[in-house]
């Protein structure tokens, strides 16, 4: 047992060192002046605001969908359920670039034309960014929630019902509170995924400065126009932001999950 502990520790240390080496190379290639200059630039301020807004909107939308989908998939058994489950998971298995390309083609066709007449434009627009994030993160969040939903002992819900609660009340008063942790984990995964989303956004919403410029798109624009300082400083700032999100959400989880 001891031996395996030691081996495990060595592997842990190796992995931590690898991650730290990568991160520190990012930090070492930048100086404070450039970092502050980037922090103050209009482009950076736009992209951080834009990233936060779009990711929170897509997160909220996705949470709504995920809870309801997870509810059905964890409770009901129906013909073709396996197929439906696999379809829901498609965005996990497909590279985001392909997801983006498929919707680029879809919205580039007749459907896009009809939607556009109705005033809804997904192509090369901020709405497209939200759509891309929503599609990519929903299966991840849904999975997390479905796991906790299906773990809940059926007896609690049964007892709730036998005491006269309606289905909705059972869901609200028993199922949801018992699933808090899974939902919050889903939120962490979903939020960080949404902020990091790049491939689908690039295809569907395009890389347009100060319009569809999320943080990863800003990094892409920096790299491809030779502005490495800008790209690296945003990379560093993204690292800080993701860490803050993790700490923030973890803190909330610790406080709230006590049942």
């Amino acid at each position: 047992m001891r031996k395996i502990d030691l081996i495990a520790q060595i592997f842990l240390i190796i992995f931590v060192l690898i991650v730290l080496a990568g991160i520190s190379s990012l930090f070492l290639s930048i100086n404070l002046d450039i970092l502050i200059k980037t922090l103050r630039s209009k482009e950076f301020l736009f992209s951080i605001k834009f990233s936060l807004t779009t990711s929170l909107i897509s997160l909220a939308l996705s949470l709504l969908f995920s809870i309801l989908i997870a509810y059905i998939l964890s409770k009901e058994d129906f013909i073709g359920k396996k197929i439906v489950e696999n379809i829901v998971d498609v965005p996990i298995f497909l590279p985001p670039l392909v997801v983006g390309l498929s919707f680029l083609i879809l919205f580039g066709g007749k459907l896009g034309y009809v939607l556009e007449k109705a005033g809804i434009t997904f192509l090369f627009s901020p709405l497209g960014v939200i759509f891309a994030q929503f599609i990519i993160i929903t299966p991840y969040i849904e999975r997390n929630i479905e796991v906790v939903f299906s773990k809940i002992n059926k007896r609690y819900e049964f007892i709730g019902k036998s005491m006269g609660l309606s289905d909705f009340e059972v869901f609200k008063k028993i199922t949801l509170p018992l699933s808090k942790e899974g939902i919050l984990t889903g939120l962490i995964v979903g939020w960080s995924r949404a902020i990091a989303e790049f491939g689908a956004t690039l295809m569907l919403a395009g890389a347009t400065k100060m319009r569809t410029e999320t943080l990863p798109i800003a990094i892409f624009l920096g790299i491809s126009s030779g502005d490495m300082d800008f790209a690296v400083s945003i990379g560093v700032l993204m690292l800080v932001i993701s860490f803050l999100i993790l700490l923030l959400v973890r803190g909330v989880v610790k406080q709230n999950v006590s049942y």
Partner: protein
Amino acid sequence: MKRNLLVMLTIFLILGFTSCMKETKNPILMFAGAGLKGPVDEIVEIYSKKTGITVNVVYGGSGTILTQIKNTKKGDIFMPGGMEHFKMAQDEGLIVKGVEFVYHEPVILVKKGNPKHIKGLLDLKVPGLKLALGDETSLAIGPITKKMLEKAEIYTDVIKNVLVREGTVSKLVLDVDSTNIDASIVWKTAESQFGKNVEAVPIEKEYLIVETVPVGILKFTENKDEAEQFMNFILSDEGIKIFKKYGYEFINR
């Protein structure tokens, strides 16, 4: 508490959506090579201030933006980084009107003070030199470097001196700037990223091959007049001046 949260969430959602759906009336949609971001950003900003017309520029690799154009049948202006994808678009009849208007030329990048006395392309074959060159498939400077060396009939000799191939021009600059690499071939337009420890040596006229940058109006344009007006602004003295500032040369006709 929960109900409040829900109400806040809903308001937030609606606000977010409406702010995302706000659009100016007839913005021009332009697709441009990502390497052109410097001058294009500047031109767009000046043009918007002057006319009040918004120009949304989607940047990307020249192939990527062509894919986006073809699949969405959208866009007013197309400006890829080189002729390859512009010709493809022309062959498919996507360009209503187009012109090659500026070019960028390669230069030899050496350490400050030119300690190895490199005066031109022919000096790169001197045995013992350490060179870093662009990858021949993934970035535009690669094949152009090869063509120039072949033109000078020194390709096989120079290849022996190549220590490393790089995927970006920035990395080539960095190699000469801060490693033991003696020289490289990069775009003159990369001058803004040249470090303090390097300088550029021009390539002999007889071997020089340049890359031209085209601009064209797409057949999908819904407001041809405005697209044409914007293209004319790019081609005006004011627009060309901005490209020159970034190291591009005007194509004189």
